[in-house]
């Protein structure tokens, strides 16, 4: 799939949803009115959070680049490497496929699969999106889930490291 096809996927998706609306509108007009009311309510509640997400994204994009991250990741050794994989995963921005070549490089330079797994798991902790999660699920849920996921990322890394050379 080309880059332009990929960037258009969202618009295709929206177009299909609008077609579904039109189709259902023929049979259930009242349902469309209710749906649009619900949609507007959700959209209104999201807008201010999206602005905050944008600001945090600008800050992280400004200060974190793949090259800078690689510099720190490649220095990783001993027990400290788990912490470095964890922080590296959390602060890494952008689409996942952007990071696969870097991780492949690290693997060829001697990083373990466990280290890579921990890095990838922590990409799930999205700093710019934390305000959104707090908005929807509250502070305590966000903090507990984030900490649990960070701990589990290291457990997963350790398990995969044990499997390396046997199954993997």
């Amino acid at each position, binding site marked *: 799939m080309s880059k332009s096809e990929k*960037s258009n*996927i*969202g*618009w295709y*998706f*929206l177009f*299909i*949803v*609008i077609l*579904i*609306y039109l189709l*259902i509108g023929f049979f*259930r007009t009242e*349902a*469309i009115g*209710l*749906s*649009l*009311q*619900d*949609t507007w309510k*959700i959209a209104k509640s*999201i807008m201010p959070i999206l602005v905050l*997400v*944008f600001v945090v*994204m*600008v*800050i992280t*994009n*400004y200060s974190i680049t793949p090259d800078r991250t690689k510099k720190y990741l490649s220095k990783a050794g001993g027990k400290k490497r788990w912490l470095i994989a964890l922080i590296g995963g959390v602060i890494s921005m952008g689409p*996942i*496929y952007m990071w*696969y*070549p870097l*991780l*492949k490089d690290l*693997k060829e330079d001697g990083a373990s699969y466990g280290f*890579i*797994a921990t890095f*990838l*798991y922590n*990409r*799930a902790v*999205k700093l710019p*999106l934390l305000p*959104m*999660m707090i908005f*929807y*699920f509250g502070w305590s849920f966000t903090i*507990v*889930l984030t900490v*649990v*996921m960070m701990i*589990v990322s290291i*457990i*997963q890394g350790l398990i*995969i490291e044990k*499997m390396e050379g046997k*199954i*993997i």
Partner: protein
Amino acid sequence: MSNKLLLSAKKSGKAIFSLLPILLGIILLIGLVNSLLPESYYLKLFGGNSLVNSLIGGGLGSIFAGSPINSYIIGSKLLELGVGLVAITAFIVAWVTVGLIQLPAESILLGRKFALTRNLLSFIFSIGVALFTVFILNLL
């Protein structure tokens, strides 16, 4: 420095803009599904015990892809409809940790066995993370 900041703002703006059609589509779909399906449908789908519900939530989260924002919106709506927090947590966690769509790319660049093992473990852990997170929240 200001040039770099401008570039970062441009990059972030592009990312947000590319997210908008999907976000709008998801919100429209949620509105539509809400007006067509009765609340009892969701409660029936997630009507089992916490483990079964987290399996369903984790399974659904593994299939879907895209910005986690969408998983938060869907998750919060399900929560409003009375679906348990364990299922929703598994859904949100699997959404971001299991990548069925990225699996081919991950397999090519990092190895098929690694990609399969990592994704399978991530799915299992999505259930464990959900159960443990809700357990801790209940203690607080």
